[in-house]
Structures are given as C-alpha cells and as structure tokens.
C-alpha cells in the first residue's frame, strides 16, 4: 500500500512526522525515530524571547555588580566567547543533519522582526530543510485589534520569506476569528505549509497557594476534532500543504486527518507515551486500514471529506449544531 505523501516539497514515505518536541533535539532519539520510519522531523522550537531574556539575565549577572567595591570590580571570569543566542540550536541542526538522512524542519518562535529574520537566516545557513514559524501573539492588549495582530504576523512572514529560501510553514493558533482569510493572506505571503494547531500551556489556578500554575498536558484524540474541521475547511481552497497536529494517536485519527485534507500529521504525545516504534506500528496499521477499506493509496483518500467534497459541507460550516438539534426533533 502506498502511504507516501508530500509536504513542503519533500516526498515522504509515510505521512507520520514526529512533531516539535524535545526528543527531536536529542541525537540518539532522533536516530531512533529515523530507524522507526520517521520520514521527516520537526525540531523543538527555538524561542528568541528565551534567548533575549537569557542574554539580558547573564549580562545583568555579569555586569550588575561591576564596580561594586574596590576589591571586587567583577565577580566572574571574562570568557572570550559566550554561546548566547541560538548558537546551540544552530549547532544541533548541524549535528542532526549529520546524524539522519531525512529532512529536518527547524521551528522558530521569534520576538522582534529583526530576531525572526536573523534566527531564520542562521537556521537556513545551518542546513535545515524547512522552517516552521511558531507564531504566538500577545493577545491581551485592550487597544490592539485582531487585524493589527494579524498584520504583524504577516509582516514577520514576509520578512522571513524574503530573507530565506527555505520552504516555510506556519504553526497556527486556533483562535482566529477569520482564519481562512488570514491563512489565505499567509499563503499569498509565501507560506507553503500550515500546521493546525498549536497547543499552548493552559494556566490553572492553585486554589491553596493562590497562584497560577502552567503545565502542558499530553494530548488526547478528543482534541483532534477542531483540527479536522479546519483542515477540512481549508483543504483544496488554499495553495498550501496542511499538517494536523494535536490529538493524533490512533490510525483512525490519521485517517480522519487525511480524509479532511491533511498532507501529513505531526505526533508528539503518542510518541512520548508509546515510544518511537509506534511510528512504524501506526504506519503498518494505516496501510492495513487502507487495504481493508480498499483504498488504492493514501493520496486517494486525502481530502475526501473536505469542505469541498463532503456531502454535508454545512456540518463543518455550522459546527454540527444544527444537525444535533435536528436529531432531537420529534420523528
């Protein structure tokens, strides 16, 4: 059974990609993933903000006490070279590229326009095969409109597009009022792939300590459905590859993503809980499922249940609400 696909211009033997997660930065784990049949990797994001803060913190620690007293003009040695900023990440790209043969997508979360561009340039120079832009906006500002926020993102995408030749994907938040239009603008700005959707830390309240705790819980298949809906809504309508991430665990989840129109699925939680070998297992299951359901290939199935092709497009458009209500109507 042909379960090959393509994503961001790369021909992939299977559609199951390890998503951005810590194991994708570890050389031994990366090797294991390749051995288990991963056709491509997405590295953990490099966060410019983290490096900016780290740079400033290190700088403050080193410079803060300078000239504190005549005896202690400084408190630390002065190394000739610090490896602040994304250098380690860049090194890791180089090492991973030397370790595996499969394409490697780097993932970037920038903070300033200059940062996006400079980090992206370094990532390209390091040999990454593609770049996923991990967009996160501060949305709490009472004065900023959604359009302004979207324009900022588009500016970043255009600037990165201009700076690098790498295939670009954008990992999106679910929370756009006009997602299709925004996505369309992204594609026009030069994006070749869309990753649906980012899973953010969900703050929780500690009712004893009167504080807010943040933790990232592993996904479940329940989270898949909004992704299916939006993949179906966009598939075939925008000129970009779609990747589904968040809630892909079973072969049924994979099938649904493809029926909705995905080119690939990215998996993190499933691999973290079941190990890299699950990739191979799932690929086998997918091939078997397709055979059992008499599909010719994965490609044949892709987009079959998208908005453009589904017999009941309103089900996607109206979020199932109407149908459920109808189900309660007296016979």
């Amino acid at each position: 059974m042909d379960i090959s696909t393509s994503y961001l211009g790369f021909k992939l033997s299977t559609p199951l990609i390890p998503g951005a997660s810590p194991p994708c930065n570890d050389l031994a784990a990366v090797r294991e993933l390749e051995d288990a049949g991963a056709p491509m990797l997405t590295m953990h994001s490099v966060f410019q903000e983290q490096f900016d803060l780290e740079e400033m913190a290190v700088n403050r620690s080193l410079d803060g006490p300078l000239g504190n007293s005549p005896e202690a003009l400084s408190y630390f040695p002065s190394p000739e070279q610090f490896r602040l900023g994304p250098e380690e990440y860049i090194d890791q790209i180089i090492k991973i590229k030397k370790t595996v043969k499969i394409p490697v997508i780097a993932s970037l979360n920038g903070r300033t326009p200059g940062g996006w561009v400079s980090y992206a340039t370094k990532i390209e120079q390091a040999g990454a095969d593609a770049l996923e832009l991990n967009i996160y906006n501060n949305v709490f500002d009472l004065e900023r409109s959604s359009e302004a926020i979207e324009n900022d993102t588009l500016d970043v995408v255009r600037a990165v597009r201009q700076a690098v030749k790498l295939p670009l994907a954008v990992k999106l938040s679910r929370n756009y009022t006009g997602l299709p239009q925004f996505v369309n603008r992204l594609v026009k700005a030069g994006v070749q792939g869309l990753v649906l959707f980012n899973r953010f830390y969900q703050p929780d309240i500690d009712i004893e300590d009167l504080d807010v705790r943040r933790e990232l819980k592993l996904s479940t298949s329940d989270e898949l459905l909004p992704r299916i809906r939006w993949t179906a809504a966009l598939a075939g309508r925008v000129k970009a590859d779609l990747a589904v991430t968040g809630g892909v665990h079973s072969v049924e989840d994979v099938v649904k993503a493809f029926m909705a129109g995905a080119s690939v699925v990215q998996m993190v939680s499933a691999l973290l809980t079941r190990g890299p070998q699950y990739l191979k297992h799932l690929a086998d299951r997918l091939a078997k499922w397709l055979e059992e359901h008499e599909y010719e290939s994965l490609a044949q199935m892709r987009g079959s249940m998208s908005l453009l092709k589904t017999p009941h497009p309103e089900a996607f458009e109206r979020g199932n609400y109407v149908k459920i209500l109808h189900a309660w109507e007296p016979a």
Partner: protein
Amino acid sequence: MADKKVVTMDGNEAVAHVAHRLSEVAVIYPITPSSPMGEFADDWSAARKTNLWGGIPQIVEMQSEAGAIGSVHGALQSGALCTTFTSSQGLLLMIPNMFKIAGELTSFVMHVAARCVATHALSIFGDHSDVMACRATGFAMLASTCVQEAHDQAAIALAVSLRTRVPFMHFFDGFRTSHELNRCELLSDEQLRELIKQEWVDAHRARGLTPDKPKIRGTAQNPDTFFQAREACNTFYERVPSVVKEEMERFAKITGRRYLPYEYVGHAQAERVVIVMGSGAETVSETVRYLAGKGEKIGAIIVRLFRPFAVEMFLAAMPTTTKKIAVLDRTKEPGATGEPLYADVIAALYQAQRSAEVIGGRYGLSSKEFTPAMVKAVFDELAKPSPKKRFTVGINDDVTHLSLTVDNSFDIESPDTVRALFFGLGADGTVGANKNSIKIIGEDTDLHAQGYFVYDSKKSGAMTTSHLRFGKAPIKAPYLIKQASFVACHQFQFLEKIDVLESAAPGAVFLLNAPFAKEAVWDSIPREIQQQIITKKLRFFAIDANAVAKATGMGTRINTIMQTCFFAISGVLPREQAIEAIKKAIKKTYGKRGEEVVRRNFEAVDQTLQNLHEITVPAAATSKIAQTGFEQPGMPDFVKRVTSVMMAGKGDLLPVSAFHANNNADGTWPVGTTQYEKRNIAIDIPEWDPATCIQCNKCSFVCPHASIRPKVYEASALAGAPATFKSTAYKAPDFKGMNFTLQVAPEDCTGCSLCVQVCPSKNKADPKRKAINMRPRMEIRDVERANYAFFLGIPEVDRSKIAKMNVKLSQFLQPLFEYSGACAGCGETPYVKLLTQLFGDRLVISNATGCSSIYGGNLPTTPYTTNRDGRGPTWANSLFEDNAEFGLGLLLGISEHKKQAERLLKELTSQVGDTLATGLLTASQQGEKNVAEQRARVAALRTALKNIKSPSATMLNDMADYLVKKSIWLLGGDGWAYDIGYGGLDHVLSLPFDINILVLDTEVYSNTGGQASKSTPMGAAAKFAASGKGTQKKDLGLMAMSYRNAYVASVAFGSNDNHTVTAFTEAESYPGPSLIIAYSHCIAHGYDLKIGLDQQKLAVDSGVWPLYRYDPRLVSQGKAPLQIDSGPAKANARDYMRNETRFAMVEKIDAERFKILSEGSVRNTAERLALYKELSQIVFPTKTD
C-alpha cells in the same frame, strides 16, 4: 621596531600582559589589589593564549600566598619560568620562601601591587609597607611609577634576573597604578624575544632539578660553613645595578622608551632635591618640571632600583650642587631612625662622604592623596633655614606636629586637559561606562586618557567617584581631580548630602540624572547646588536616565545612557564621531553577550539623545530644598566630630588628634554607628499590612540589614505613638493580650525585597499583595521614619520569657547587628544577625578577613551594636589566615579571666554567702532564663562586694561579668575555612574547647571578586576556574565529623529556617568545638538575590546542600550522632544549577563540558547523600554498653 600597539589599560593588566607571555607557570592566590593580574592570566590561559614559547601558561590557584610561593619555589627549582602576583599580607606570607628563593640564586620575578600592611586597621589601599617588609629577603626590588613603566619593567626585571640570577620583586603602587587606566604602548612578542634571550632561559632550565642530572639543594649547614657560604652570593648582587642599567639601555634601543635605575629630573644646578619612588615620583617630577621651569633650583631623583641600593649610581644621579635633600617614604617604621629610603640615602651619602642636609618624610599611606601642592610644601620646607628633620605631608598632625602646611590652591595642571568627575553608584555601571569612555578616547583618537576610580566601603549602594582626564600630552597626574571642567552626578539622591559641585571649575558643564521632567528639575535640586551652579556659571544638563533605561529594557543600568550624555555635551570629541565610537564600543563589549544586549544598548544611545536637555539657569537660587548633610541631632560626640565627617567623604580633613584624643590610636572604634548613616539607598521599601499578616516573623528573619523588625509589647507602650503607627493584637498564646507591630527602618532598608519573597501570607481578595508589599521609598519615608523612631523606643521583649527558641520568637530578640554595608539581599548577614539575637549580649566574635569583616568592620560606620544595658558583641579581625587561632586565643584569655573570677569567688565565699557563691559557680547557663538568673546573681555579688574591703573583692568586682558564660564564635567565609585558614580551623576542631565556628559559605571568594575556593562546587565558573571547576566541593562537614568530638551542622535558612535556629542553639550549648556550615547565597552566584531563598530551597531539595546535624552528645543516648534533616532529593540538581550564572555560563561557553560536569555533580550529590545516609544509621556503643 615592530608596529606600535597603543591600548588603554590599568597597571594590573599592563603587567599581566608581559608576565603571562614570559611565564610557563603562574601560581597565585587572590588578594586586593593584585588579584586582577592573576585573573587576567587565568582568563588568557583559559582562552588558550600562549607565552613566547608557544605554550599555554599553567595558572594554578593555591590555598594561600604561603602555598603559592611554595609552589613557585618548586616550579623554579624545576627550571621553569614562573611568576606570582601578590600584595600586602599575602606578600608577608611569602617571606620565608623568598629568603630561600633568593638564597638559591633563582631567576624569578614576582609582581607586587604594593599595599598597606594591616596594623591598627586593615587597609586595602596602596603604600610601600608590604614591600619594605621584604628588604631582608635578598630579592632585588624594582619600583615602577606608572602603567607604561610597570608594563616595561615587568620585562626588564626578568631580563636582569635571568642574567644575574638574583630574583626580583617588581612593584608598583596598589590602586594608584594597579587600577589607574592610562595609555600603554604594548611590547610586542618580537620585542620581548629580543629582550629575553633564549640562552638565559636555557641556562635557567639547565639549573633545574632533574634525576637525569641529579643535584641536591636545601641542605642544612652548620656553624662551620653557613656564614662563608652565605657570603658567596655577594658577587651576584654586585652585578645587579650595572646589569639593570644595561638592560634598561638595551630596552631603550628596542622600544625607544628610556629608563634609568636612578633618574634625575629638574634644574641642572639644583640645590634642593627630593628623592622618591613609586607613583609619587610622577607627581614630584611634574611639579619639579613646573617649578624648575620657573627658575627654581630644585630637582628630584626617581628611585627605580631600591635593592640592591647602588650607592655610586644613585649619587651620580644627584647634582653636585645639591645642598638639601628630602627623602619621601610611603611607609612607616615606628621606632626607626628613619624610614627605609631615608635611611639608605643617609647611608649612601655617608659612605661616599658627601654632605648634604637630609630630611625624611612620610606621605601617601593607604593611598592618601599626594598632590603637586604637597610636593611644593616639601620643597618649601627644604628652603627653610631649619627644616623639620622628620615630617609628614598630606595630613594634619596636630599631636606631634610633624606635618607640613600645604597650600592646596597650588595647581600645575594644564588648562588644556579635560578633567571630568562622575558620581555614581557601584551598581549603576558608572565605573564601567567611564572605563569604556577612556578606552574609546585613548584608543580611537590621538588624545591621551587617564581614569581613576574611588569607591566607598559599602557593598550595597556604594558611591563611586570617577576621575577622568583627557589631553593632547601624556597625562602624568596620579592624584584626584580638584578642578573639573565636567561634573556628572548619576544619582539624584547624592545631592541631598554630598557636595558634588565642590570640585566644579568655573564655567564647567554639570550633568545630572534627575527623575523629573526638564521643567521640574531646577526646583527639585537643593538650594546649595543651585547657588553653586549660578556662582560658578555652570552649564546645566539633565536627563531622566532611569526612565530611558526602563523604556529601553536596560533595567537599572544607566551606564550607556550617561556615557552617551557625556560624549554629547562634554565636547571631548565631535558629537557624531563620539556616538559612532560608543556604538562601536558597545558592539565590542557586548557583542559576545548576544544581539539583544547590543540592540538594547543601541536603543538606549538613541533614546538618550532625545531625552537630554539643557536646563535654563535662573539668576537666583529659588529652591525650597536644603541639603541635609550627615550630622543628626542626638549623635554621640565622637560620631558627630569624626564619623559624620568621614561619612560626608571629608575624612581627609580630620587631624591626627581625632584619632588620638579619643583613646583610639590603637584602632579601637565605637560600636553601633551604622544607625547614624541613614543611607536611603532603596528605591522601594516594604510596607506592612497588619490585616494580612500572620505574624510568623519570617520577613525579619531573612532581612540582611535588620531593617524590618517585629515587636511584641504591652498596649500601654503605644502612648504617644504617631497616628500612622500600626499596631495589632498579638495572635499566638505565648504573649496573649499583648500588641504586635512589624516596622520597617525606611532609611536603612536596601530594598532587596527578600522579606516580601519569604512572606507566606497572601491577601485573599488580591493575592498579588502580601502581608508586606514594596512601595516607593519616597512615598512613605517620612511617615515611616517617625514610626520607626517610636518603634525603637518601645521596650524589647523580656528575653527570659522566651520559652523555646524558634524562628518566630528569635525575631523578638533585639538584633545587635544592623544596617551593615553588605550587598542588598546578602545571604550571609541573616546568619550573623541571628547570632547576635540569640547570644549577642555575651558574644565574642573573631572574624576572618573577607566580606564579613568588611561589612562588619569597615569604617566609617560599624554594624555591631549594644542593647539597652550597653552589652553587645565584641568583635575583632586579626588576619585572613589566622582567625581560628586568634579566636582560640581570645577563648583562652577569657577562660583564664573566668577561672580567676571563680578563684576569687571561692576565696570570698564566706563573705558573699554560700548560696550566692554556689549558684554563681554551679548554676546552668543554658538558655535565656538561666543566663538572666546568672546576671542577677552577678548583680547580687557586686552588691555584696561593696561591703568587703579587700584587694580580692575589688578584683572580683572588676571581673565578675566573666562569671556569665561568654559565647565565642569564629566567623568567616569559605576562603578562610576551606582554604587559607583550614589548618587552624582543623586544629581548633581537634581541641576540647567550647568554641563555635560559623562558616558563611558562599562557595567562592566573594570579597575579592569571585575566585574559586575549595568550596566552589563542580561545574561552577569562578575566577581561576573560568571553564567551570572540575573537581568536587570539599566536604568540610564530613572532615570535621571525623574528629567525633565536634558538633557539626549544615544549614540553609532559605530552605529550613527553624533548622538553622536549632543548629545555632545546639552548637552554642555543646560544650566542645562546634562547626556550622551555612549556605549563603551571594551576588557572585549570578542571579537576582531576591530569589536567593528559592535557590537555597532548590539546593536542599536537590540534595546539593543537605541539611544535617552531627551531635556527639547523642552517642551517650544510644543514638546515631548524625541526623539528616533534609529529605531525599526531590528536585533536579541541574535545575538548581541552571538558575545561576556561575553554572549557566559554563554551559554557554562549553555545553559539552557543562554536561560532563553537571552529570558529575549530580552523581557526586547522590553519592554524598548515600554516604550520609549510611553514617546516619551508625550507632556507636555507649560507655555503659
């Protein structure tokens, strides 16, 4: 000649630059002001910079200077080229080995940043008392006068030493030269190769010990041969002066820079001549040139080669017309016929049978200013018919009347020299910015530049004064600026007390960082400042630099902003060129720290130019604000006359009588004086919310400066309280019915916010608020000042009513250590404060040199204070290395006094009463109640003694207080306990005396700027461990436990404060030696100290810092003496490490190495915990088993 490379650097760097390239080995130990030489060498070796022969010099830090010189001796005996750097007491520790090295005719150069040797007080500043103490060692001594010379003579000294085999001490003035920035033309490698001939190096190596050609050295000789053998070295020494001269001449040919062993400057027919060495020689020669230019027949001889003192060469330098000579010594030798150089000059003249009238004077002790006006005073004295034979200059000696009168208006500085004065805070980056400016100007333009930096003695909120000169001619002015053409005040609050415009020249530019809109600046400054601006016709500029810093993400660092202002308005460089140069310098300085740092600094530069304003100066002063100064009502007389003058920065004006009439010529100083300083350095201070407070007193416990205090008291004490004074009902049953107040000392708080961090009580409706919350100091200062004054008047709690000591109750005890100059958020001082709360009224502290001796005893004010009975800690610092021994001596003496009192009491038992005497001799003194009862018995004894007329009764009356148990504590940091003082500490632990040791363990030499100690943990970067320490921290506690007679505890108050209190009380009660190792977070760990408590917790939770107590008393109870008080590791050691720059920077430099070291550290932590666990299960047989 090779291409000239001109850089701007200080004397330490200039010397290290040569020494590193000319050494195969450097063995070192940190001591101010020479530490940076070793640090530079270590940094360069870590960066794999090579010496002349292509090797990377091996830099090894030892446990003391005695250790360093021992290894130097060994390395030299192996035939290696070796060096060391030291100062002061460190040099004195090297003396025994220096005799050996010289006796063995060993080619070697040590570099000494000459520093005052501690006498009546310690001083870190420069004079020649240390090098003069080494005259007898047999070392040749070569003095440098300035940065360039120090660089050059570092090489010349080695050339001569290699040729003559006489070891050299190359010295230059500590701070004045070691820390002065000036232009320096660097010797190239080619030049050094030409100077240091390979054949000499080969010969040195060939003299080394090797089993391939065995030799024996260090034999013991007997009366039959020692004397003759000792005289055999004479010819080697006889050669030295001529070889020095030859090498200086050769040096001149190679470099164009000419030196002489004895250099004359001045009038060819001089009649009056001054003889001087060190940086003072620059002042003297410049003054001589100035005055001789006006026709005065005067001159000066600069002595470079002090040992061997070459009589003929020296006299040849002196004009034959010389009639009168003044010899200046930067040292004091009490009881001698004269100071060393004076004595040598007299002897030289006598030996040559030349006659001249010679007078000798002391100047510049402890970096005391030495100015052209003082030089002129010396020449004026010489001109008198009967000049003083012995004199001092630079002070007012109104006791022995040795001092010369100085006309301070005398000035020789060229008006073309730009003189700029900057007042800043240690933490605001002023010094760093000025260093940067000097480098920009010194290296990017043709101008010469000089910078010198003056610090006060505080570690938090220290005022720094930067003295910068720029000019077309080389700047030879090793003294402070008195007439500045540019004055910048980087901290607005200074205007309240400091006369920052005192040294502003007429027409100067004044730049002020003022937290106001430009329209409001004028009326916000004190009237006195306004008046000076008007009178001196100053141009006045202002900027709100803190606002710009905040807006550009620079935090509290205003360095770049103020530097930009300086360049924008000082006119030193064209504005555009200057801004470009600043940005270039930013890129150079911060480029390796990341793009964001550079970006923010660039933004700060741009924003600065938009926010810098010239303030229109009205014709008359209009301000309603007056300067407050330092004098306060109610100050004791001495504090008013002496301390407050020192606080105002005018201590130079105090005469000798100020230190004589008050019986403190021996260095004794009044206690409890920090209370008068009121430094007002915090931006925000805590404010108490009684409704949210649960009265746990943790805030007070962690306060490093005793600036937030609780009191429990009768409601009647509230009579007369200010309306704003907060009081609430005390909540716990122990003092039921009483009132409770938590009060901040608004002018003493440093704003560290540890109190808020530790506060466990959140406001239920608004959880971001706690029981204490930070508020801008200026909003609540006046109200809280009145509240605090009232609070202090409320009676302290009755100590005997404290039933069981714990964190909460300990904080009701009066701290007798308050408002020290320790860093904001210091992790050491909460322990010291606790010590004074628990045992302060009977506490004897022997304090090793280090941070705790500086914040504990650095003038002008000291933090140890007294209770209402006048009792409190008595404190002394002997040396760094001998603290345990010194403290033991105190114990021995005090215990003899006690025994004497007991003997007298026994003798007088029948007269004072058997019950009272028995009580005094046998009652327990454990716990506050028992101590109070013993004090009552002593009072009763004194009453009884009044009726007994006998010498024994009189003596017992004098000594009766010794019947109350004294609590003797040795305090010091890990540098002392683990390294330099370990031998003594180890010995004291082995003895059976009741002595307590508190090690304030910051895991690094904090006081001297973060050098590695044996306490430094694996993986931490420190100076001398730049790539991360590769070995484990020494387990001092385990070593102490091995004696099995010592109480040993490991504490971390941020993790478990009650455990700390328990350990302190147990240690004090244990009748033998006790050792407490106290985790002390520190600025040298590299994080915001407000999270210090979190880091302490993480250290304990991760097992990095286990809490335990080893109590030998438990053995007799059939229990294991070791109790582990922290649970199994529940956090990751790597998480602890990653929060601190000292570890994180290793990861940023070399991630692979960090991985190895952090894994090693995790493994060792686990092994250590496993070992402790095993030990904690060992129950020793009791005597009855």
